[in-house]
């Protein structure tokens, strides 16, 4: 027990090590309030008009204040920890503001002219500088172009993925994998340029929704390949082998066993890819040309599309056109979000059966 007597004198030291003065729990909140108040005061005093600047000043004051106060009371390491925490929170707030504003503005301004008439009428006979008109022709255009693009891209993408996962071992598979990666990075305007030079300039076809679909398909294929590949890889090998062992030919095994097992995940990937290309403007701008009227035939003549319509109305530069642009943007966002939610729904609905999680 000599150890105990020996150690006893060091105890006050231990107490000092284990405990130190700590700021109360409300301290960060208090410092934040102080910083905002001081920031506003400085902003007012200096006559700064932009609230962004008030916010920035308050943010800087908050960080400095946190560091100074914590360093005095709790020590430098704690101060650094608290500054890091407050910076991380600040990042969150700083990012939320513009993203919230984006959504809020789109909804608020979009609802101004969004009604059934807007959804069921085209811009035919509408003077651009006056109110009225709608997005019907653009919705038709988007649905047809995206639909055609999916019809082209989904089979190619899925078959390529099946090749890579089920058959691919050699050089060819490596090269394909590499170029799928390369395709993922193609900017949308470059895919538009390619179809332009190939389909319109060299082959001499005119502007049409289909030309746009081709460019959209180029953007869509790599996304479909990647997501399908991931899903197929999740299918356990035992499943394939047990089917093969029953004497089922390989192609039927893939179609009847492997694909159905992973179909939920594949569909999710396809929906996300559709959502991505539905918002593309650049290829449409280059290849579909835009149209004020309803053109139900995607294979001949110019069409419109939702993203293109937003850009077109924005370019007109008057308030009525801006209102139409916001409303169309809202329709577009709603469309994309619905696709996303459906994709998630499929993923959740199918997940337990496919991955056994």
């Amino acid at each position, binding site marked *: 027990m000599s150890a105990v007597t020996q150690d006893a004198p060091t105890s006050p030291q231990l107490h000092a090590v284990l405990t130190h003065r700590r700021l109360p729990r409300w301290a960060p909140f208090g410092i934040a309030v102080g910083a905002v108040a001081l920031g506003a005061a400085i902003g007012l005093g200096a006559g700064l008009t932009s609230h962004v600047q008030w916010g920035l000043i308050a943010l800087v004051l908050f960080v400095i204040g946190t560091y100074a106060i914590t360093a005095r009371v709790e020590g*430098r390491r704690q101060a650094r920890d608290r500054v890091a925490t407050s910076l991380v929170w600040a990042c969150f707030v700083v990012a939320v503001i513009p993203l919230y504003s984006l959504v809020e503005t789109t909804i608020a301004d979009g609802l101004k002219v969004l009604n059934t008439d807007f959804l069921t009428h085209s811009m035919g006979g509408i003077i651009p500088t006056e109110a009225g008109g709608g997005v019907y022709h653009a919705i038709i255009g988007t649905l047809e172009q995206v639909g055609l693009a999916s019809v082209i891209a989904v089979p190619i993408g899925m078959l390529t993925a099946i090749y890579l996962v089920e058959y691919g071992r050699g050089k060819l598979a490596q090269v394909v994998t590499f170029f799928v990666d390369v395709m993922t990075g193609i900017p949308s305007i470059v895919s538009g340029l390619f179809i332009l030079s190939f389909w319109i300039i060299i082959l001499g076809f005119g502007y049409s929704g289909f030309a746009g679909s081709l460019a959209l398909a180029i953007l869509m294929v790599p996304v479909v390949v990647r997501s399908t590949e991931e899903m197929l890889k999740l299918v356990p090998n035992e499943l394939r082998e047990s089917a093969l062992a029953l004497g089922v030919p390989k192609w039927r095994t893939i179609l009847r066993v492997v694909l159905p097992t992973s179909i939920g995940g594949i569909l999710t990937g396809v929906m996300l890819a559709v959502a991505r290309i539905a918002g593309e403007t650049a290829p449409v701008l280059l290849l579909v040309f835009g149209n004020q009227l309803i053109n139900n035939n995607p294979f001949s003549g110019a069409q419109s599309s939702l993203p293109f319509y937003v850009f077109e109305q924005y370019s007109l530069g008057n308030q009525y056109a801006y209102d139409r642009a916001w409303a169309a943007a809202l329709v577009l966002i709603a469309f994309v979000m619905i696709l996303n939610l459906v994709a998630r729904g499929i993923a959740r609905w199918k997940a337990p059966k496919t991955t056994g999680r």
Partner: protein
Amino acid sequence: MAKRIDVSGLTAYYGNHKAIDDISMTVEPRSVTAFIGPSGCGKSTFLRTLNRMHEVTPGGRVEGKVMLDDENLYGAGVDPVAVRRTVGMVFQRPNPFPTMSIYDNVAAGLRLNGTKKKRDLDAVVEKSLRGANLWNEVKDRLNKPGAGLSGGQQQRLCIARAIAVEPQVLLMDEPCSALDPISTLAIEDLIGELKEQFTIVIVTHNMQQAARVSDRTAFFNLAHVGESGRLIEIDDTERIFSNPSVQATEDYISGRFG
């Protein structure tokens, strides 16, 4: 510098589940205390309450007192970060920082505490690696990644990292369960040397190991699966393994269950 640990009425929860219930015990300074018991009996949870690592787990919370000499680790105003610097820990699987060299791994704790001078760091790194019986094996490759060592060497590196900050107590959570017999022997020898300076608490599944390295042994058990773990008894290791006072302990040690 080693301290006595005095636990009274300690209960730990994961969310609503009570993992260990009302544990009291005393751990003598400069000794090795081993925790044994079947899986899921809460011995690792209990170990993690001794340096306030338990509350890091989402939903983890603790009631009761852990006195380190006369300081309650769960007292008001006690900084859990400072507690963990005073009570070091070695984990089940060797976990050297993969992006750091051997040297940087050992120096990590000191650097956090603000020691920047190369000469001070050099001295402590050498001392700690010697203390962990690793110096001779790695002195020529201190700048190589720690992940390149063998499992046993990695675990000794982790011990060196833990003792470099000069804790009062060293907690070891099944430190040999991921190692081969030769590495295990090296760690056990090391534990025998380390108890000259530190109060050591070790959780182990291996009863021979408990018998070999520890001065005192605590047996934990739980009545049924899903219930809380309890401390059945704690006594001198010799007594526990020759003549335990509780029947359950004898059953467990003689292999009748668990």
